[in-house]
């Protein structure tokens, strides 16, 4: 595996710088009303109330970038935890059915009981994702660990297909809600506002901290279930706790911006190439990389058919799908 030999702290600083540059570009680029790069910076610390451009940056662009950063970090961390728990390089929220399950939960509630509002759909997304994940784990006998890689992925694909079919059925039955659900299914940051940010960041913070706390244990899981238990890891608690964290991370991200796929699959592998196999190191790297990737695809998503927007999820799928195929070919599953 290629690895760029930069000390860990250096890598972190470089990624932070990259993240800052990506966010900055995202703040001023591709806007109908011209925003200068300096406008973007001014809006952050010394806002001119007269300037429309600075208002756009502050009220629309900034929450969007911040939500993008959190979504990216969340999905990447969730991917790392899922790959660690299942010891499966293909494990990620989108491959193992969590995205599809959350979408089904969200679509069901927003079609059948739209009066529940934003909180209702978030909870529905988490519950739907949780049920799908539980089914996939049971069907794929992931609790036994080890050599059932193909089976787990098959179970994920099957459950995803089932959830997608049911979601379509729900959309057809409740047509008036269809447009909103469809945008959400593609995953877009276009509707992220300060309100989204305010309800998102506490869960995000808890989820990411929890992910860091579980990182040293994920290291021991790499040695196989028997060795991990022998070294004093209580597997049941780690797997339950890890699954809970995954649902928290994915559920909060999905209910904020919709089903963004492939970050959870892609980014952990990129982070491993950079920082090696120690979860204590590559997990924070993955979080930052995920944030960069989502902010970057959000910027690109505005550029493609400017001035209209494409969902950022679609951009990520465009990059993600070929990478997925590359992974499948490279690894012996």
């Amino acid at each position, binding site marked *: *595996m290629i690895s760029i030999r930069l000390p860990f702290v250096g890598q972190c600083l470089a990624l932070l710088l990259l993240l800052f540059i990506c966010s900055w570009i995202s703040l001023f680029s591709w806007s109908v009303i011209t925003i200068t790069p300096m406008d973007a910076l001014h809006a952050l610390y010394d806002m001119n109330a007269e300037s429309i451009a600075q208002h756009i940056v502050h009220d629309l662009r900034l929450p969007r970038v911040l939500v993008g950063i959190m979504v990216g970090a969340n999905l990447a961390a969730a991917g790392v935890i899922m790959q660690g728990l299942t*010891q499966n390089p293909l494990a990620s929220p989108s491959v193992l059915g969590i995205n599809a399950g959350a979408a089904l939960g969200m679509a069901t509630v927003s079609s059948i009981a739209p009066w529940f509002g934003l909180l209702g759909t978030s909870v529905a997304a988490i519950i739907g994702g949780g049920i799908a994940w539980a089914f996939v784990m049971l069907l794929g006998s992931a609790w036994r660990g*080890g050599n059932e890689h193909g089976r787990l992925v098959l179970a994920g694909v099957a459950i995803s297909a089932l959830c997608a079919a049911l979601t379509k059925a729900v959309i057809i039955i409740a047509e008036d809600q269809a447009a909103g659900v469809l945008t959400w299914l593609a995953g877009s940051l276009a509707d992220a506002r300060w309100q989204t940010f305010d309800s998102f960041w506490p869960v995000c913070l808890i989820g990411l901290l929890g992910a860091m*706390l579980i990182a*040293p*244990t994920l*290291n*021991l899981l*790499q*040695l*196989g279930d*028997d*060795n991990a*238990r*022998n*070294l*004093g*890891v*209580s597997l049941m608690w780690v797997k339950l706790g890890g699954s809970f964290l995954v649902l928290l991370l994915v559920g909060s991200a999905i209910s904020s911006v919709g089903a963004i796929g492939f970050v959870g699959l892609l980014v952990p592998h990129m982070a*491993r190439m950079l920082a*090696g*196999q*120690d979860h*204590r190191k590559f997990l924070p790297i993955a979080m930052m990389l995920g944030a960069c990737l989502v902010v970057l695809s959000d910027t690109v998503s505005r550029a493609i058919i400017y001035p209209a927007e494409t969902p950022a999820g679609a951009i990520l799928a465009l990059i993600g799908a070929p990478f997925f195929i590359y992974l499948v070919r490279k690894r012996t599953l």
Partner: protein
Amino acid sequence: MSLSTHNLSVGYHDKAIVKQVDLTIPEGRIIALLGPNGCGKSTLLKAMARILSPMEGQVHWQGKNLHSIASKKLAQQLALLPQTQPIPEGIKVKDLVAYGRSPYTGFWGRINKDDQVIIDKMMEETGITELADQLVSELSGGQRQRVWLAMTLAQDTPYLLLDEPTTYMDLSHQVELMHLLRKLNLQGKTIITVLHDINQAARYCDHLIVMKEGEIITQGSPESVLTQTMLKNVFSLDAQIHQDPIAKTPMCVVE
């Protein structure tokens, strides 16, 4: 009296492989578990290391049920070297051995000076010091087995449970391993090991436990256990027992 099983039945998928075994491990000895393939040696060992949960009966550690003791505490008392090991990708030898210290480190797994001393010593003892910076996945089977052994030894427990530790090793490393086990035993460790080579067990171990079809057939010193009738009954082998000209222990020669 530290490690004992009481009416213990263990197995997989509702099928008991070890059947109602009562066994007290004699402390301070090197004990070999012997028996034909599929007789339940590994299963018994895994149950004693709380990797498998009993279907019936209990395993006791110092008079307490094994499964009622906190896993991290227990990991400082019992260490198991499993029979088959995964091949972890991208992990260096020195890092793998260091994971053996995780029952002692804080949750973050930071290695302190004392830990490092033990890690270095165990790598020295198992002869893998010069492999320290290589990836585990790039080693040969025998080298890898010694790396895993070093990790288990780094756990620094009074009881060691080894499942066929000589697998993949060439003869000289096998002999070195048996000497290392004796050295550890003289430092006060109790070692329970599954072995395939009966003569190796008779030569290097103090106490033999013979199993067949999930039950313990006989146990005791090599002299009392290794008999023509036992070999016939348990292994269906016609063999003669002779005295090893060097170690003066009994050895069997197949007819």
